[in-house]
């Protein structure tokens, strides 16, 4: 379905082309290529150190690349003259460690960027915060401080904070890795809701079951390369022994 729609509109939101990146002598990304169409959910999976988080961080220019091209919402991310703040208004990112601002209430966490960056009025920003919190099921925590919330609630608040900026694409960097299964479930439910609403998302995840159910596309990274790339079906029927081994199905 979505493939047909993409062909029709030609809407590629994120495109990485032959991206190389090294940390010193360590090659982290070795010719990575993939793209994400509007409304699609792309899950990046792979072992620790396979370069998946780095690839994600490159999309928001938290890492600069050595060579190759990254285009996000029509912006050349690899271009040194890139307007970083414009890029980051289009791209929302959620981290493993939530990174809410501890000195601000949940409401202030959410209203900060819209009022500072977009010049949204306080009243309107508060309205948006309320809506975003309702979306993640945290309406009753609006006046709480982050430390008064559980990990799962903090992560949902962090998602709401990103959503309030109305990004065109959301990046999730192992957002449930610090949570127990129950809290993981509540965060994944929120992400599912976003997918249903048509949000374009790229997520690095270790939740294979979740990836299987939500992903339109799956990228399996192995030693800095895209080793396998396909629909969620590759998670059930991997074509390479490396992915099979990673999934624990054996061959």
């Amino acid at each position, binding site marked *: 379905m979505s493939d047909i729609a993409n062909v029709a509109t030609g809407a590629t939101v994120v495109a990485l082309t032959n991206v190389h990146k090294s940390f010193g002598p360590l090659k982290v990304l070795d010719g990575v290529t993939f793209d994400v169409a509007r409304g699609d959910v792309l899950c990046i999976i792979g072992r620790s150190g396979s370069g998946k988080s780095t690839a994600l961080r490159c999309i*928001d220019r*938290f890492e600069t690349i050595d060579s190759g091209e990254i285009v996000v919402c029509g912006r050349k991310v690899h271009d040194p003259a890139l307007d*970083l*703040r*414009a890029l*980051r*208004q289009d*791209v*929302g*990112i959620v*981290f493993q*460690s939530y*990174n*809410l*601002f*501890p*000195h601000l209430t949940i409401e202030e966490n959410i209203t*900060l*960027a819209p009022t*500072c*960056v977009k010049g949204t009025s306080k009243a309107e920003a508060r309205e948006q915060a309320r809506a975003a919190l309702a979306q993640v099921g945290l309406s009753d925590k609006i006046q709480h*401080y982050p*430390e*008064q*919330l*559980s*990990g*799962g609630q903090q992560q949902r608040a*962090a998602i709401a*904070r*990103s959503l309030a*900026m109305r990004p065109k694409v959301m990046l999730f960097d192992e957002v449930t890795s610090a*949570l*127990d299964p*129950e*809290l993981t479930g509540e965060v994944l439910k929120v992400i599912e809701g976003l997918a249903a609403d048509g949000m374009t998302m790229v997520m690095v995840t270790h939740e294979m079951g979740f990836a299987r159910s939500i992903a339109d596309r799956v990228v399996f990274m192995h030693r800095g390369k895209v080793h396998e790339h396909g629909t969620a079906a590759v998670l059930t029927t991997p074509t390479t022994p490396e992915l099979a081994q990673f999934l624990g199905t054996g061959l």
Partner: protein
Amino acid sequence: MGGSLNVNHLAFLANGALWTIGLSLIALVGGGLAGFVVALARISPLRAVRILAAGYVQLIQGTPLLVIMFLTYFGLPPLGITVSPLTAASVSLTVYVGAYLGEIWRGCIESVPKQQWEAAEGLALSRTQRMMRVILPQAVRIATPPTVGFMVQIIKNTSLASVVGFVELARAGQIINNALFEPFLIYLIIAVVYFALCYPVSRLSRRLEASQGRPRLSVETA
């Protein structure tokens, strides 16, 4: 030589003690402003600014305050700038305190987790907004106990202003002693007054430090 300790002497000492407090406040405000600039300069994205600030800190931390006092008081007049004892003491303390507070505060700013910067960056906040709205409010909390603690050093260090003839508590004591020659009694009084000024401040610092580790409310963890 003249008489015994009387009410006038005590009034003179009290006046000196007030100047000690006044000078401490001047040093805190002046040094605080300078320190703020130094702290920001130390973490500036511009290398030249960082080096300049680091050089300033090294230079001041490697120089006794006494010498800085002499330099401002005796060194500036030959350059055509006349300075009163109060000005010399204020400038010296500002320069001195600025270097130390700048270094303390730089540490506090840098102790705010790097992820806080990233989260703010991801929300498209400018560097100034990240600093003012996200990092500094957290750094201020971290900085309060050590800053109050350093205030004790400032109060004691104002006594060095006596070398340029500024009449604060220590100098007031010297002057009275020159008349009465009762060094033990007079310096004992001086010591007690300094202690009375410093002790509450250092207690406050310890209180702040202790209360800081305490979360606002227990966390409902998983």
